[in-house]
């Protein structure tokens, strides 16, 4: 196994622990917005669709690529806007 792959595996293990640590002690009131926020963050998959689209030359990959970019954007934009709307309601309490 190359050093690079091994480093990736280290990184993944750290991220798994970090994810657990970030969520473990969150009050249940925030579970819904948190899920929604996490939902927006995995929209980072959009980066992959941009890269793949930017290298496509034939018609079918291009069509699929555009669809992938649109879907990814829906995930990102919709995700963040919905989360923001949910959290707007907490603001008034202060």
């Amino acid at each position, binding site marked *: 196994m190359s050093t690079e792959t091994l480093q990736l595996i280290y990184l993944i293990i750290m991220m798994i622990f970090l994810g657990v640590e970030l969520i473990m002690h969150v009050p249940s009131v*925030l579970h819904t917005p948190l899920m929604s926020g*996490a939902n927006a*963050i995995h929209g*980072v998959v959009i980066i*992959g669709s941009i890269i793949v689209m930017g290298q496509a030359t034939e018609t079918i990959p291009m069509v699929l*690529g555009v669809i992938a970019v649109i879907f990814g954007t829906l995930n990102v934009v919709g995700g963040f806007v919905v989360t923001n709307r949910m959290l707007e309601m907490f603001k008034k309490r202060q």
Partner: protein
Amino acid sequence: MESILPLVYLVASVTFIVGMKMLGSPASARRGNLVAAVGMGLAILGTITLYTNANGEHLHNIPWIIGGLTVGTVIGWMMALKVKMTSMPQMVSFFNGMGGACAALISLIEESHHSAQAHGAHTADIGTSLTIMAGLVIGSVSFSGSIIAFGKLAERIGDIDVKGQQLVNILVLAGVVVLSTMYVMGTMTGMQTLVILAVLSLAYGVLFVMPIGGADMPVVISLLNSFTGVAAACGGFLYDNMVMLIGGILVGSAGTILTVVMCKSMNRSLTNVLFGGLMSKKASAGTGGGIGVQGTIREVTASDAAVLMAYAKHVVIVPGYGLAVAQAQHACHQLEHELESKGVTVKYAVHPVAGRMPGHMNVLLAEADVSYDKLVEMEEINPEFPTTDVVLVVGANDVVNPAAKTDPTSPIYGMPILDVDLASYVIVMKRSMKAGYAGIDNELFFRPNTSMLFGDAKASLTALAVQVKAL
């Protein structure tokens, strides 16, 4: 120039971690969301302008990429702004499905690149095949599963109970596993294999979510959310892209834990939530189980209910999905205000899964300026019910169903409930005698100390507030 993009990705990764951390406390949650959104914007912009492939070429098709981004932004923004507060959970599920579909499409396009380069022969190494396969399978399951969850929450798809579904599920899953292995080992390659794999995975997503009860959808959405995270991380592997890897794994891990925490707050195991529907479906059909709920119900008028509450010492309000549907949070706060001015102590009993998602009720009541310290969680309020004079149940059903404690055949058996039946008097506000989300009858409504107040929650609460004020 080469070293700038990794730095941009580093900054974006940090914003994801910090944003997620800030989402975990009420005071900073909104800023946390913005921080992560800015990071995402940076990562997207950086990729479009700075990305170069192994041969040092920049990305082509920029107009198409910008076009796709624009279309997605406009549609996503509109959908997110237009959706009602009550429909938020299905919206999250829908957007999650889009992310899954995006990951699956990336895998398909990547495979077509490899096939094209080698004229159909298998060129990808095992690591690449593995990530292409995993992205496709996980993304497809997440996509079709999320869409079914969306349909169920929007009440467009009911619970479907087909004999022998368990066997079909296992067969389809086995098909996915076998085909995936063959693809990775290189015994079956090419586009056709991946398309078949995609179809099987999509079918599995549907079959997996279909038998799960509507009330458990939040748990399912949370699980599918972490699936999409893992699918995104596969893309990170494929392109050695750190921000995708970090964002994806972080959500995969956080989502899994969130799923477990949600199950815990319902006092159920994940296995029970996911596969309980398949195993014990027969018992739950029809009534609340073996006993069969029957008896007479008593109706109460708004004016009688107002008298009962105005002359009580302790009143507990139990909000549920009905409150959300009727947008009755302001009317509820008004009633609370009128009662308090008569010297009645009013508290809200918030069940962890009241509504359609954890925290649903807190969000709604916070919107109506209900004071935070009046919202009491289940464990703290339950010992207080025996000394409570009147409990007002506003459009909640399953979370106050005693069958969860008494009837082992009930699908909600074992879920902790609010023990409202211990109070001296219970008034239940409902639109009709229709069963709750779990589709089972509620024996609480037939108890001698329970009365029903039928009608729209907002209208009833407003009427109650007026009556209390007039007393």
